[in-house]
């Protein structure tokens, strides 16, 4: 069984993150680049399954700039077997349609039984890529899972939805995404670190995958970027025994209650 995990390098959300106001692209210099935490949980889910079952291979898949290679090496050290990196200048500013097309193409080329992803990335916050891939590769999807059980032929998990929790089950091949309710990732061990540099890391261009980013298909385009004005402090009062009353008046006055 081969499990592909979608991993993503993102600007560290614990620091300042900036968009370039001209290009709308993330400013690389503004933040550290890290493995998106939610995707590290996806890796953990795959690797821990591989430890408990026979004949499970874990491959990492990403698209992104050259810097993603060091992220891939570090993630390989967690116990994945190989990594696949789509690296092409044509991907700069790719919309979700192109991203899903590229990832689906590389997944089809590698071949896999199960794809595991994080539910929503911390930078793009789209949360649609996993299911878009499922549609492209003709697989079932089971997204935003708070728990995950993998067997040779199926995946099962719980997801929070309208008014309750549902248990969903999909036959393989399937694409699943996981939430931060899944266990956090292990740290790479010494053996894993030493082994990582010898593991296969393959890179692909768009041409390798037969994808033309300039193809005339509907694309989402960016029209404008503005920096939101920082919220400023309003009125600040010290409670002198009547703050509850004053707050009530404020809320009534502003028609907020």
């Amino acid at each position, binding site marked *: 069984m081969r499990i592909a995990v979608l991993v993503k390098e993102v600007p560290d959300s614990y620091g300042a993150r900036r968009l370039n106001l001209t290009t709308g692209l993330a400013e690389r210099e503004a933040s550290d680049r890290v493995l998106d935490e939610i995707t590290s949980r996806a890796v953990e889910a795959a690797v821990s399954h591989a430890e408990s079952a026979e004949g499970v291979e874990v491959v990492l898949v990403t698209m992104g700039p050259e810097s993603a290679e060091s992220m891939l090496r570090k993630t390989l050290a967690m116990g994945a077997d190989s990594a696949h990196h789509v690296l092409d200048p044509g991907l700069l500013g790719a919309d979700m349609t192109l991203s899903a097309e590229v990832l689906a193409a590389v997944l089809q080329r590698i071949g896999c039984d199960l794809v595991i992803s994080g539910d929503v990335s911390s930078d793009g916050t789209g949360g649609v890529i996993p299911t878009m891939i499922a549609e492209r590769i003709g697989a079932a999807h089971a997204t935003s899972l708070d728990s995950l059980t993998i067997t040779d032929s199926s995946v099962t998990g719980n997801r929070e939805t309208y008014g309750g929790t549902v248990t*969903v089950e999909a036959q393989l091949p*399937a694409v699943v995404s996981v939430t931060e309710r899944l266990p956090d990732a292990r740290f790479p061990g010494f053996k894993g670190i030493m082994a990582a540099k010898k593991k296969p890391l393959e890179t692909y261009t768009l041409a390798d995958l037969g994808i033309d980013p300039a193809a005339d298909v509907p694309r989402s385009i960016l029209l404008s970027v503005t920096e939101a004005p920082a919220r400023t402090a309003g009125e600040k009062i010290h409670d002198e025994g009547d703050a509850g009353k004053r707050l009530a008046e404020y809320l009534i006055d502003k028609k907020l209650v």
Partner: protein
Amino acid sequence: MAQQKILTYLPVLPSGELMGSAAELLGAAAQLGSPVGVIVTTPGMAEAAAESAGELGAATVRVAEHEAVGTTLTEPTVDVFTTAWEDLRPEAVLVPNDIDGRDLAARLSVRTHSAIAADVVGVHRDEEGIVAHHSVYGSTFTTESATTHGTLIITLREGAVDYRGQPVTPEIHRVELGELPPQAASITEFSASVEASTRPDLRGAPTVVAGGRGLGSAEGFALAEQLADALGAGLGASRAAVDAGYAPHSLQVGQTGVTVAPDLYIALGISGAVQHLAGMQTAKTVVAINKDPEAPIFDIADLGIVGDVFEVVPQLIETLKAQRP
């Protein structure tokens, strides 16, 4: 020129009611064109929901009822939308930005070769078409996007749109489900949420009351619940309160929790770490009550009260009760 059709997904709760976000989805649709509501339920659930969709401004409602809706994930809804898309060639499709809405949007965009705009916080129309607004990096940037051509599929963040449609008597079209793909994931079990109460869901609530570490204990956190119930508000919590065991993880507002954009956000005993602010700073009005006058939350509060939450909040509840007997 006839108004462009805007296909709008209106999820139905297990109780048979429309999801709270239906009002703003139809409001956003009305801003852009002529809203066509789509309701997909198990048999016997759709009629009442379709009527309420009319009250929220859906002139037309497509209704599909089928057993498979309760047993098959996403595909029944995608099927209904794909047919509707082929029939109507809508200019936009609007769905809630929640886990089912995102799955629908994702499948539909690939199936109909349409561009997608996810986690949208507002929409408008300019001379070239529909423009989607996004709030990026914890609300520090806003961007606008559009599609080069074709339908734009939009997942709309809850609580983001104020505009509301005019009530109409809806024209209801019943549609049949086509054949579903065999590989679709199945729903094997459903358990209604144990947290189910009259309290509105945190994500779409117009008012949110959130409690933090300053409430001191799980017992102290009950104060936030009391205020939330007094205001008919959704209940949230800071990460510190969740980590300290005062509140369940599902209530966490912030970077690694829920992002909310209510009309009113009341923060009780929350100091205001950057990670928390990222999840709530698009709220229209922020009120903060904290003992520490230097708590960072005051830097973004429209009204800050330096004081003891255990004195201010009971007085607030009393005063409001007296005003509205």
